[in-house]
Structure formats: structure tokens, C-alpha cells
């Protein structure tokens, strides 16, 4: 069983550029990583014999809403800032856990897919794509998963999301 500091130093040794910092906090300390290297980092974490993170417990997208917000035509919009993806990992052999975080610019949120490392990431990534518009590169089947396939109202979990007026002739707002 390894502590977050030990896991971080192992990662830092291997990926000096791709791993940024360890954010310490009482519950779930997390490591920030490069979104375009996350697939390599994930593979390392899963295969390293002292780490063996074989279980992706959760993968979630977050709108950090840390850009500039400005009302355009009465609708609040956010410019700049980042969208993030969090990976909650566990090793079923060593029982240690770690959280990874990657942040990508809001205007072009591209993150490498980790489906080749953990197959269970498939639908989680589709959900993050569906609701936040995060583009997972090299994902085998990046389609909407919850919203209707012909939905054109945007990404509902973004903080500057505004309801469309109609969907297929049905009024959307209350």
C-alpha cells in the first residue's frame, strides 16, 4: 500500500513533463496531469508492479467555471477557463487509491481517452462528452449517451448552459 506522495514521486520520475503537482487535502489528494498524456500515465499506473491500479472506480467531468463570465443578449456565457476530468483509481491488490485530474481549455477541451487501459471508461467518457462536450481523442465510439441523438441544445452541465426553446416541437422551458 502506497501513500499519495509515493505514487506521485514514482509518476514524477517517469513523466516529468506530464505530471504537474500533487494537491494535498484530507480526503482524496489528487495529482494534476497533462490531458494529452493521460493515456500513457494511466497505462503506467495500471501496469507498474508496485502500483497495479486495475480498477477505474469513477471518471467524471467537471465544469470549473473559472473563465470570464459575461452576459451576451441576456444569457450568461463563460469565456476561457477550463473543463476538467477526474479519475478515481483503486488497486484491488494493494488496496491503495489515488485521484488524477486533467484540465483542458474550455474552447477546445481535448483529453486522451483511457478506454484502452480501462475498458469501463468507455461509457463514462461518453457521458462527459454528452453533458460537458469534452472531446476524448481516440475513443472508439464517442456518441451522445444520455441526451437524444438529435439534441442540438448544447451541453447541459456546462455552467453557462441555456435551455433551447423547443425540442422536436415540444416546449422545453417551464
Amino acid at each position, binding site marked *: 500500500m502506497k501513500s499519495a506522495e509515493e505514487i506521485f514521486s514514482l509518476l514524477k520520475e517517469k513523466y516529468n513533463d506530464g505530471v504537474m503537482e500533487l494537491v494535498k487535502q484530507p480526503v482524496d489528494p489528487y495529482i494534476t496531469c497533462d490531458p494529452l498524456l493521460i493515456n500513457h500515465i494511466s497505462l503506467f499506473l495500471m501496469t507498474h508492479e508496485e502500483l497495479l491500479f486495475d480498477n477505474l472506480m469513477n471518471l467524471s467531468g467537471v465544469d470549473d467555471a473559472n473563465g470570464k463570465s459575461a452576459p451576451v443578449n441576456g444569457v450568461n456565457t463563460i469565456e476561457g477557463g477550463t473543463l476538467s476530468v477526474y479519475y478515481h483509481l483503486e488497486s484491488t491488490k494493494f488496496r491503495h487509491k489515488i485521484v488524477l485530474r486533467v484540465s483542458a481549455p474550455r474552447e477546445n477541451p481535448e483529453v486522451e481517452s483511457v478506454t484502452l487501459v480501462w475498458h469501463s471508461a468507455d461509457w463514462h467518457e461518453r457521458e462527459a462528452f454528452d453533458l460537458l462536450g469534452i472531446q476524448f481523442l481516440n475513443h472508439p465510439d464517442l456518441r451522445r449517451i444520455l441526451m437524444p441523438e438529435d439534441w442540438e*441544445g448544447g451541453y*447541459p452541465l456546462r455552467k453557462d448552459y441555456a435551455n433551447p426553446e423547443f425540442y422536436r416541437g*415540444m*416546449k422545453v422551458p417551464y
Partner: protein
Amino acid sequence: MGILDKQFDDNIIIAKVDDLFNWARLSSLWQVGFGLACCAIEMMATSASHYDFDRFGVIPRPSPRQADIIIISGTVTFKMATRIKRLYEQMPDPKYVISMGSCSNCGGPYWEHGYHVLKGIDRVIPVDVYVPGCPPRPEALLEGLLKLQEKVRNESMVKKSA
């Protein structure tokens, strides 16, 4: 009705066609076997032995073509709304709709931030009875059914009741 008194054996019953038809209809309102969310659990409880929907002639049918009512029991998403519309259109006339619970009445707790929820099934199909509650207890659904029976009882072949 006197049926149990064996009065049918050598007698004739005279009734208005309206009344006879209405009585037959309201006593056998077959529902589409269709549930959506937590309201569907209450609906199933209403069908089960304790509340016994069957004593009012309500039995679930697996096909909309053999059904008289559809109980919209739960949250209606936009995706599901298109399917419900199709189910409703497949039902033969006369057909009735009970909207069960806050979600299908008006969007319920999703009224403001539910980006995927239709704010009331009456935006898609006409509703005869609204049953409030979140979810409504079986008694409330039974009350809604009695209201619907009242409505059917006052129908006429010549003019449609309100």
C-alpha cells in the same frame, strides 16, 4: 345491479344505450402495462392485492391496442415523450389518460433545472385526470380512477363530455 339476485333468468333489462355502454366502459378500464419512475412503484402497489386495482376492472395489458387508459406514472423525459406519444396514438378510441404525480403533471422537482424533462405530459397528449403527489399514494391513484369513472359515466354518444 341485480345480477347476483338471478333476475336475469327470465327477465328483460331495459337500459339506455348510453348508460349501458358507459357502465361497461368504466367497469373495465384496461390500462397499458407501462411505468416510468417511482410513481410506477406506487402504481404497481395499487395493482397488488392490498389495494387491488382489479376490483375496478383495471388490469394491465401488454399492448396499447388492447388498452383503454394509459397512466403516465413518472418523470417524462423528452426521449420518452416521443415514445409515449406513439403509444397513445396506437390505443383505440375511446381512450383516457391519467397523469400520475408531479413530474408528469408539470415537471415536478425538475421544473427549473431539468434540461431533459418535459414540463407536463399535457404538452404532448391530452390528459383526463391529474393525480397530485410525489409520488401519490395508492389511495390517491384510486381516487383519480374514480374521478375518471365519473367522467366516463357522464359521457354520451352524441356529445363528448368535458
